[in-house]
């Protein structure tokens, strides 16, 4: 592997062959012009990169627990702020750099579910950090249990398909809207299947003052059950079927980065046709049970969900009546007394 690629995250990790998160880590961190410090929730990424006495991390890294990557990075970020105020050269061999990018990584379990409160708190407090969720649609480190990011219809160990069940009966949680409700300046949905787009979004996130958020699709070869060579293909299909639209929310305004033609477009001329959801489902072991006559209705329902979510997203993107600039809070007011 070339040195530039491996400068933040070494190749000697033990992630599954065909796992996308090493690529996600390298792509995102590669866009930071400043040194980075990482906080990581418990999960696949953590266990496969830090097996003592080895570590794949060539940058400062902390794993605290499952639900608190955002709270942990809050502490690191404020420690940086505090130490910059002092003469820190007495504390460390070399002085603390003025600019550091603080990045928290969590899977969907550690973000949509158990870490949601911690994430919300950190976004609301306005720490200067980037939160990245790599979304593989379930608790994959513990062997494929359902999370609130697991798609409707998926066969998991805790929502198994059977005579009386077609798998998960609930829709995925829309985390992007929850994040946007915190009125942060930049949030984007990206994918390991489109690295130029991911790079651009990482760059924007790093340029953002205050919290920023990236939700990155990460197909799991092990528990979606597809050949290891196909994670990029499935990531692409997720976008081409509108299951995983690529979009960004800047100051509350939505932009779709990969527009497709769909029923809702009423004949508008767009570069691509939306592929049917079956294109994304077929070949994945977790959806295999859906391709039977009795479960045909499940696929139809999935298509309906995808289309209605897409329509909703398009409306949000077309509206953009939201003020182009969020109200600014003068952050210096509260601290003027002690910075003098």
């Amino acid at each position, binding site marked *: 592997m070339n040195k530039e690629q491996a400068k933040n995250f070494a190749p000697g990790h033990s992630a599954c062959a065909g796992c996308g998160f090493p690529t996600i880590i390298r792509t995102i961190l590669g866009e930071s012009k400043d040194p980075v410090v990482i906080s990581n929730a418990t999960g696949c990424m953590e266990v496969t990169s*830090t097996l003592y006495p080895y570590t794949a991390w060539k940058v*400062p*890294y902390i794993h*605290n627990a499952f639900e608190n990557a955002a709270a942990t990075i809050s502490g690191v970020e404020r420690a940086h702020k505090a*130490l910059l*105020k002092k003469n820190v050269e007495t504390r460390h061999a070399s002085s603390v750099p003025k600019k550091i990018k603080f990045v928290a990584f969590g899977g969907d379990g550690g973000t949509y579910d158990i870490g949601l409160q911690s994430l919300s708190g950190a976004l609301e407090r306005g720490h200067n950090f980037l939160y990245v969720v790599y979304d593989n649609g379930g608790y994959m480190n513990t062997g494929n249990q359902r999370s609130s990011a697991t798609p409707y219809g998926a066969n998991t160990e805790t929502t198994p398909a059977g005579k009386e069940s077609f798998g998960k009966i609930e829709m995925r949680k829309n985390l992007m809207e929850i994040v946007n409700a915190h009125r942060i300046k930049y949030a984007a949905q990206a994918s390991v299947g489109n690295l130029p787009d991911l790079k651009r979004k990482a760059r924007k996130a790093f340029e953002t003052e205050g919290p920023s958020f990236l939700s990155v699709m990460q197909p799991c070869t092990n528990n979606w059950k597809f050949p290891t060579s196909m994670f990029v293909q499935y990531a692409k299909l997720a976008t081409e079927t509108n299951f995983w639209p690529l979009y960004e929310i800047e100051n509350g305004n939505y932009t779709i980065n990969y527009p497709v033609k769909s029923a809702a477009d009423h004949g508008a001329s767009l570069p691509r046709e939306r592929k049917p959801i079956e294109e994304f489902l077929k070949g994945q072991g977790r959806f295999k049970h859906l391709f039977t006559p009795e479960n045909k209705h499940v696929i139809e329902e999935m298509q309906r969900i995808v289309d209605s979510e897409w329509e909703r997203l398009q409306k949000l993107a077309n509206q953009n009546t939201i003020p182009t600039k969020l109200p600014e809070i003068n952050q210096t007011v509260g601290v003027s007394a002690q910075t003098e």
Partner: protein
Amino acid sequence: MKINNKNRIALTGGAAAAEALKQIEPDVMAVYPITPQTPIIETYAKFKADGEVETEIIEAESEHSAISACVGSCAAGARTATATSSQGLALMNEILYVASGMRLPILMVVAARALSAPINIHGDHSDVMGARDAGWIQIFSENPQEVYDNTIIGMKLAEKAGLPVMVIMDGFNTSHSVENLEILEKEQVQKFLGEFNPEKSLLNVDDPVTFGPLSLQNSYFEFKVDQDAAMRAAAEIYADINAEFAEISRRMHSYFEAYNLADAEQVIVLAGSTAGTAKDVVDKLREKGKKVGLLKINLFRPFPREEIISALKNAKNIAVMERAISSGTYSPIYQDIVSGFYQTDARPKIQPYIYSLGGRDIFAKDIESVFEDLEKGDISKEIKYSGLNKII
């Protein structure tokens, strides 16, 4: 040292903790409100609002996130403190082990309070006793003076021992009771503490370190035994720091306070605010010629077993009085004392007592009656409940 009037003030235990924290001026405090700890963080927030301290305060959205942020901050090389009580400490429980396992010298002031259910906001030791195996050094305080002293001692102890420290006061009994105390000058406190200069830090980007790795069957065991060795070594460090503290404060603290203990035949062992009442009772009974005494535990984890047992070896009868239940067995201090005696030849009779759960008042007459029972030899293996109403 000269003590002038401005160094003698009247404060609640909570305000005394806030005053000590102001003089420590941690780099970062991550906090969340809970009764009866809240006055500590409110008072500290006002210090910040008035420009008296520069501490970065993180107003976390839960105690779990508060202690999680403390872990991040301390690993980043910042002097770090927090405070909590009761349910808050219980919610932090998972991360208490992470903090001690990473050997992070976080200071936490605890206004000890009962645990739900039923919900009760008043003092007892259920919360801190529930955290006694979490790898935190635990120091009990009797009154606002000790809260103030222990907060400063605790910060230094944490950093010297490389372990987190809990400084404990009794919720309401101490946290909300005003007493006179003597404080130091901030410069003295700062000089006493020195710089916090950890070997590794997340902010030292030229020397990147991985904190909190995965450690399996081939290494986890060694990490934990090593951590326990650090805990055991902390007792001596505590004693040394107390001696240093006495030089600047003229107040000497020890593993425990022996009150009329040397020739005492009937002895009460306890921790926390009840020691004040117990000392009054000891004085009164001594006047009547009774050979009674008190051992008040200050350092509870690590447990200075040999020193405590040695101090108790002449006692005929001992009552261990505790504000916590260890459901289905004896309460924690009783277990520690009894097992300590088993390593010696001394065999005093030891009566387990539980008292004052959920803030139930304990009076001098209750303690007198404990001494009376000891003197009569009315001692059994059954737990006695002081101040318990008859269950109808």
